């Protein structure tokens, strides 16, 4: 299996499973992606135990939904989209995550100075600490767009919002991130 796992692409594995063949091949996908899915879940839910639970659920759900993977994007993009969707839905339901309420009580100033010291390097950890101060939906938007380079229509789908709403929220998230950076 180890030798096999190095050779076969994700898309080929999915193709073979969908053809009704070797279901055990999914264990390769599982091993390949569990750490990445776990990282994304942890970034959003901030609990290692819960992130592990959600990652297991997501990879099982992805297996059940393999037929909906159309091959228009890489398998990893599709899986990450399922991951964000699952985590945000979970947070909306269990943690009563309510973006409109949060947004109206965290208004942005009317005039925003978009300049900043471009020579200043910002570490990954510093960036993550700034992102943690955003609403989880705004953080997810930035991660999807700039970490995973997902197109806006796929981001909108994953968050169950319209594309226009996704664009506006992303701009808002970027503005808030800049303001947070400047506050420090």
């Amino acid at each position, binding site marked *: 299996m180890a030798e096999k796992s190095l050779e076969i692409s994700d898309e080929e594995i999915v193709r073979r499973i969908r053809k009704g063949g070797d279901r055990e091949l999914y264990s390769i996908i599982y091993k390949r992606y569990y750490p990445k899915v776990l990282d994304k879940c942890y970034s959003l839910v901030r609990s290692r135990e819960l992130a592990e639970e959600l990652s297991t659920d997501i990879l099982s759900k992805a297996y059940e939904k393999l037929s909906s993977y159309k091959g228009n994007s890489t398998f990893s993009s599709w899986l990450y989209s399922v991951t964000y969707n699952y985590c945000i839905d979970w947070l909306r339901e269990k943690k009563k995550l309510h973006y409109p309420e949060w947004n109206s009580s965290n208004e942005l100033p009317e005039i925003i100075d978009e300049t900043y010291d471009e020579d200043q390097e*910002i570490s990954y950890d510093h960036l993550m600490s700034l992102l943690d101060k955003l609403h989880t939906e705004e953080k997810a938007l930035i991660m999807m767009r700039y970490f995973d380079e997902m197109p806006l229509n796929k981001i909108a789908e994953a968050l169950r*919002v319209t594309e226009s*709403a996704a*664009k506006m929220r992303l701009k808002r998230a970027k503005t808030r991130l800049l303001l947070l950076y400047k506050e420090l």
Partner: protein
Amino acid sequence: MDLFKKIIQVATVKVPKAVIDSMKQIFPAAKNIEWSHDRSLFEVIFYHDDLEKIARYDDNGTLLEYRVNIPLEKIPKRIKKKASEEGEIMNCIEIHSVDIIRFEFIIRDKDLVRYLLLTDKSGNKIRKEKL
């Protein structure tokens, strides 16, 4: 380039003068402007009159459509009432295309299932679909 810069940096898009002039004329006090170019159209996202807006132009500077994010507390009462009959309003965007005004809502039902609700300018339902 570090990730922060990648996020914050505004993309450089070469926008024709006719498009910029048209935008300045219609939205003179626009702030925090960000242009993009897609499928031969120029799209701009910005703040204007304290509201978030997205406008689309062709390369001659003709405004094809613009969208305004309406804060939930500013939705006209009559329209809000009608949309609320379909579920809890999570987002509202007013769409102006040519001389037609419509509203695009995101609503959710009691089971937190989210829908796109498109209405006419009076709040009458045109389309509702699951997101």
